[in-house]
């Protein structure tokens, strides 16, 4: 069917044409829709329902772990926007996450003899946790936009070290090394998201409430990111990634596009940073080191570069993997005797990054994509 033909079919006038052909799109909007096929709609619904049901089925620690998955996923989406979509390798993600964490603690944390905190509402500190890193990101971006590839990686690497030093020394905000600080208080207009509450007659534990909160936030931010990615700006990101000079010739302003990518990415990182200390209780400034950045890179590499769902899969993988190793360790040879569980976790982590880079650069999401396309294309038409 030629393009002209598809254009003239209107959905109303030609129901018969469309019947039994779920992937025949008659409008660009429907082709671009987030859930463009019936099976996608169905399975997304099932997945969301299952996720909402999970905290009632699992124990406290697992619910907390899944909450951590959501938070890492938000940070992962941020890195994927700048690295996956816009193609600007950033090793400095930990810095922005840390900045978000300490902004949240400053605005929302409880003050003490040695610590400063304003005890503001989450309605203020959570947006601030995103905005402050975003502003810093916007400041750094013009520098970063001047360099490419390896040089950019080194430049952003520098950020991590600057950040580590700052976080260590700014004791009145961060608590200082080895001491750390508790997360901000997640209270919105008197409702605390990290306290046991009774809602509509249901007694909910604080882990469950925070789980729902983080999940809702992930859904909102994930959909926003998907929308950004399929918008004009998202296409500009991808154009800059694929061939920056060609993009410039097409009228995409390189500097502005890269700066926006960094800004949005840092915003996501900051939000993840604001929630992270709440979920883990307290956090040391040493946490925001190079390894933390690498963890985020691993999330997008293993999950899938330039896919939002991939970031979420990758986050689940990275957060749950140590637990999986821990649980299975007693049944595996060598682990526990020759190498400790912790070392086994790290080795597996490194090995997985290598394996994915070599075998499936598009990550777990790419594997799924390949499987789907295979079944779509099979058998071949000769």
């Amino acid at each position, binding site marked *: 069917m030629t393009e002209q033909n598809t254009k003239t079919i209107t959905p109303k006038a030609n129901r018969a044409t469309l019947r039994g052909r779920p992937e025949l799109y008659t409008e660009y909007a429907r082709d671009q829709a987030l859930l463009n096929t019936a099976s996608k709609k169905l399975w997304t619904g099932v997945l969301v329902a299952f996720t909402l049901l999970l905290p009632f089925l699992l124990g406290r620690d697992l619910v907390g772990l899944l909450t951590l998955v959501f938070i890492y996923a938000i940070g992962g989406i941020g890195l994927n926007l700048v690295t996956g979509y816009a193609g600007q390798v950033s090793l400095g993600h930990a810095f922005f996450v840390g900045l978000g964490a300490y902004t949240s603690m400053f605005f929302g944390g409880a003050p003490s003899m040695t610590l400063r905190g304003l005890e503001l509402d989450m309605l203020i500190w959570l947006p601030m946790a995103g905005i402050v890193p975003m502003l810093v990101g916007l400041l750094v971006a013009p520098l970063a936009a001047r360099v490419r590839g390896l040089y950019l990686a080194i430049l952003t690497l520098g950020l991590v070290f600057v950040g580590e030093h700052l976080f260590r020394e700014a004791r009145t905000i961060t608590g200082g090394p080895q001491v750390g600080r508790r997360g901000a208080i997640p209270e919105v207009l008197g409702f605390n998201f990290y306290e046991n509450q009774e809602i509509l007659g249901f007694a909910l534990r604080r882990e469950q409430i925070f789980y729902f909160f983080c999940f809702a936030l992930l859904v909102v931010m994930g959909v926003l990111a998907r929308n950004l990615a399929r918008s004009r700006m998202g296409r500009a990101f991808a154009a800059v990634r694929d061939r920056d000079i060609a993009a410039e010739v097409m009228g995409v302003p390189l500097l502005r596009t890269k700066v926006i990518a960094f800004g949005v990415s840092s915003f996501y990182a900051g939000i993840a940073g604001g929630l992270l200390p709440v979920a883990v209780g307290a956090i040391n400034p040493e946490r925001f080191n190079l390894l933390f950045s690498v963890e985020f890179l691993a999330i997008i590499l293993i999950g899938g570069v330039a896919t939002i769902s991939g970031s979420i899969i990758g986050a689940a993988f990275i957060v749950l993997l140590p637990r999986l190793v821990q649980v299975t360790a007693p049944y595996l040879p060598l682990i526990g005797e020759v190498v400790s569980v912790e070392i086994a976790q790290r080795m597996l982590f490194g090995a997985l990054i290598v394996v994915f880079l070599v075998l499936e650069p598009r990550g777990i999401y790419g594997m799924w994509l*390949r499987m789907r*396309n*295979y079944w*779509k*294309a099979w058998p*071949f*038409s*000769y």
Partner: protein
Amino acid sequence: MLAMENLEVVYEDVILVLKGISLSVPEGSIVALLGANGAGKTTVLRAITGLLDVHRGKITKGTITLDGKPIHHMDAPATVAAGIGQVMEGRRTFTEFTVDENLRIGAHTADRGTVEANLDRIYTLFPRLAERRKQVAGYLSGGEQQMCVIGRALMAEPRYLLLDEPSLGLAPLIVQQIRDLIVAINEQGTSVLLVEQNANMALAIASHGYVLETGKVVMDKPAAVLREDDDVREFYLGLREEGAASFRDVKHYKRRKRWLS
């Protein structure tokens, strides 16, 4: 003889690009491989020189043989050592090397003793390159770069040279020069498989031609016959008799093909 039998290539496990192609390049000949964009011409060359895995492609069926020995499992360096040289599409010079260094890189698999003699041969074949010997390759003009990469491939003394669109983006006069050079190279004993959009130029010098269409060989005839074929004249040479354009007669070899199979 470089030959392929019923070759099938699949990219990403999903996209079937070559649907059973058989062609052969006899020793000492020039064979033209024609076809529209996306017909699979470049894939044929990639399959021969073992470059498919870079593009996540795989040979799923068929064989490629060099003088009867299968070579379709070899990687790219091994095929070069076996005597097949490829000139890739779009002038891939090592831009920061001088012309001389570019050519010497081409002799990577050759014996050390042959390098000087081969350099001499290339510089006599391409006098323009001799003039620019010490210049950085990235600063050469398009035609000179094309000569440079052809020369580079010849440094390994290939018995079979695969040329992917050597006329791409060159002025008609330079295209003529390149054409004459291909003939000269062939006369020096190198067989050539010439992949071209410029059918006019390719059929002028080839002895045999294949026309590829969506992964299948639809015509396999001596170049002289192809030059006279109405379809080829119309679709590839752009020659059409005035008023004879009835679309009922369009591409009748396709219909013929259907009757046969």
